[in-house]
């Protein structure tokens, strides 16, 4: 006797708990791997899952095993040329374990590799940044959806029942199903009246008519007042919230004093702003401007990885930003955000120019501007000039940091506005 059971609708993901436990156990390694991935990834690519590698020796589950050596005799299939007593050189990996599959060698035998989902990846990314929980959920959620009316459907939850339409439908149905009977019935009734007027009450024709009328009445009564067929429900569908577009300017000093470490810090700063914009705008453009004494619009690769020598003129980048806005991003159509990272070096005479450029030309067009000064204990002209900008513009944020966890406060105002 066999029983056949359809289990397909049973919950899947029975292993979700085990997966979480695995991630928890290898928290440190996964975190390291995510940090590596963040430095390698493009800014606009931050929002996806990731392949993680953990050294296999960390995840190994040890058992008592035989080591190499001693005397071992093994049987193998597929003899071609051997006869008893043949002596053959010992293969490098010991007998039996000759061919490794091609994919193993690509992955490397020493790593345990698996995929992190997008949510898990962002979780780890946020961890370092010490974001408040509310902000985390705000960033990690999928693009905002809004539920809108989309006419009526014939099935749905009782709470969405549309009474008027349902009754209107019922009326139409009743009319359609009973009209011919009603018409016939009134004909018969007229006939009956005329018969009654002409004949005695016990005329068999009257009885026949009465029977026929009764039958019609039963037929009419059998049509239900309300049928499930009549029910109409309000339908709502989820559509993405129509949001405007934003452009984000990444400005970074690439003069000799900015080493790779500082650039990695700066990258996280840009990433965070990018994630924020991605959640709030349908379309987000990113413009990379690097500068030393002259500014240049470049692609991401060149932005993060090239290094120039020489002095620093910050206003060159601001000028370029202004020009690009003028040419391509009209403030009327675009929400403009600026993020600048630097180690604070600037030509002394240039800092004042920067201030006036910002106050007079840029800030009126911008939603928000964040300035990050990395690992500089000895602030110079640029910092004090920027402080004056901040006094006048509440949407100008600036901060000196030494560690990734200090990045978030630069954006605090920005996220707070979101909450409201």
């Amino acid at each position, binding site marked *: 006797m066999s029983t056949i059971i359809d289990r397909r609708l049973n919950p899947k993901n029975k292993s979700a708990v085990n997966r979480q436990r695995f991630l928890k156990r290898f928290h440190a390694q996964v975190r390291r791997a995510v940090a590596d991935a963040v430095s390698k990834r493009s800014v606009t690519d931050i929002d996806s899952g990731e392949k993680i590698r953990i050294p296999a020796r960390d995840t*190994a589950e040890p*058992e*008592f*095993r035989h080591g190499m*050596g001693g005397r071992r005799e093994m049987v193998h299939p597929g003899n*071609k040329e051997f006869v*008893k007593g043949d002596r053959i050189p010992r293969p490098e990996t010991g007998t039996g374990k000759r061919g490794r*599959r091609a994919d193993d060698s690509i992955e490397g035998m020493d790593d345990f590799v698996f*995929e992190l989902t997008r949510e898990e990846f962002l979780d780890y990314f946020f961890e370092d940044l010490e974001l408040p929980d509310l902000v985390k959920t705000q960033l990690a959620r999928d693009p905002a959806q809004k539920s809108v009316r989309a006419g009526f459907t014939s099935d749905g939850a009782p709470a969405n029942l549309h009474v008027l339409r349902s009754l209107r439908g019922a009326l139409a149905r009743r009319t359609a199903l009973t009209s011919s009977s009603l018409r016939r019935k009134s004909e018969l009734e007229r006939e009956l009246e005329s018969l009654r007027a002409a004949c005695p009450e016990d005329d068999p024709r009257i009885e026949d008519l009465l029977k026929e009328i009764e039958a019609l009445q039963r037929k009419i009564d059998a049509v239900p007042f309300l049928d499930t067929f009549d029910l109409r429900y309000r339908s709502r569908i989820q559509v993405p919230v129509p949001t405007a577009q934003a452009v984000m300017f990444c400005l970074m000093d690439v003069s000799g004093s900015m080493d790779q470490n500082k650039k990695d810090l700066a990258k996280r700063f840009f990433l965070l702003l990018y994630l924020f914009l991605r959640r709030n705008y349908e379309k987000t453009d990113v413009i990379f401007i690097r500068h030393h004494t002259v500014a240049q619009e470049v692609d991401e690769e060149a932005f993060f990885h090239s290094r120039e020598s020489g002095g620093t003129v910050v206003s060159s980048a601001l000028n370029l930003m202004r020009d690009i806005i003028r040419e391509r991003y009209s403030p009327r159509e675009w929400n403009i955000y600026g993020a600048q990272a630097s180690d604070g070096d600037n030509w002394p005479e240039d800092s004042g120019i920067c201030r006036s450029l910002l106050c007079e030309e840029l800030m009126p067009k911008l939603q928000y501007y964040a300035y990050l000064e990395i690992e500089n204990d000895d602030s110079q002209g640029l910092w004090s000039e920027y402080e004056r900008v901040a006094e006048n513009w509440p949407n100008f944020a600036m901060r000196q940091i030494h560690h990734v966890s200090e990045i978030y406060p630069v954006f605090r105002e920005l996220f707070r506005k979101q909450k409201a």
Partner: protein
Amino acid sequence: MKPLSEGSEWTFELLERYDAEIGRVAAEYGLDTYPNQIEIITSEQMMDAYSSTGMPVFYHHWSFGKQFLNVERSYRRGHMGLAYELVINSNPCIAYLLEENTMTMQALVIAHACYGHNSFFKNNYLFRAWTSADAIVDYLVFARNYIAECEERFGQEAVEEILDSCHALMNYGVDRYRKPPPLSMEEERLRQKERAEYLQTQLNDLWRVTVPTREKSGREASERFPREPEENLLYFIEKNAPLLEPWQREIVRIVRKIGQYLYPQRQTKVMNEGWATFWHYTLLNRLFEEGLVTEGFMLEFLGSHTNVIFQPSYDHPYYNGINPYALGFAMMSDLRRICEQPTEEDRRWFPEIAGSNWLETLDFAMRNFKDESFIAQFLSPRVIRQFKLFSVLDDDSEDQLVITGIHDEEGYRHVRQVFSEQYNLGNLEPDIQVYRVDTRGDRSLTLRHYRHNRRPLGDTTEEVLRHVRRLWGFSVHLESLNPDGRVVETFHCA
């Protein structure tokens, strides 16, 4: 006869009809089975089942998450197809069928799992002696609930530590020669409390003597505990580790019981798969003879059957040892041939079965052997020639490997003997036993490794010892001995 179906789509009605027909033919051949519970599942569910040793319910542990991530990754990248089926040694016998299978594959799987494996589980002597098919699902439920409860009371990490250590010793939680009592969840639950109390008193007795007292006499002092070396490390720890809490002992016991349940499967891979493969082949061919399945069905069936029993040779890039399906199927089919059409050679090698009733002979072999003895008894020269088996000696005192036997008259016996040894779990795993506990001194535990063929312990030894140390609670020593009784290597974990 009209075929049961023509297309490749399966439906529940068709599954029932195929199952009924396969079951009828199986009964005609005398296969004795548990009732079947056939469950259709999705590929995600199959991956879930995969990662908890195929069990329908299991406790939670990170290592199963690791397994899951591994399976998921290879599956998503298309490196690995999922097994068509998974079958559980339980009563009723639970078999999982993947929803993506075609009708032909479902029929193959039903024949293979629900009648092949099922009858093996029910009748093979190891499974009969070691597993309680009636109680296993209940026991797993008990185990999962118990461990979840422990996690709640004592913290996930504390439980995980114990489980890690127990898993490291899982293969050493088996009584190789004593038959264990059958499992029952109700009794487990009832006895568990009693056992906890009883154990604690037992322990107190054992360790009472450890309060340092003046030595009474030399003879008493030298009396060893345990008197006889104990091969079941987990059992010894469960009963004797001084510091374990009752709940920790219970977890040791759970892992031990589950290890024991899986023990017969590890010893009968070739036989079990060979038996199931032989029967899906025989049963479906019978349906074809009766006209119940079409030629198209047979073509698809034979295609995947051929893949299953593919054996790459030793120099093939995909070679990864002997394929148990291939060897098992070849041996089972060969047994039938020896019974039905014995050659002169068969009569010399197998005088007692050549020409006998094949159904009875196969049934006898299935009931009374495990891989090691099955090969020693029934591997015929013909199968050795078919696989072109040869034996290689790897002796670290020689700088070259030596071929010690091939598929010729001179080599058959030697190859067969070496091959059979290869399936002896006792040879595959290092022989490690509890030797001595220093009950009067520092309470240290000494294990002994008895070397076979001078083979040393591998590089994981220190790490496993740390797990033993965690369970035992005091320092642990491991002595590795040559057959002459000399200690050649020692490991310590203080």
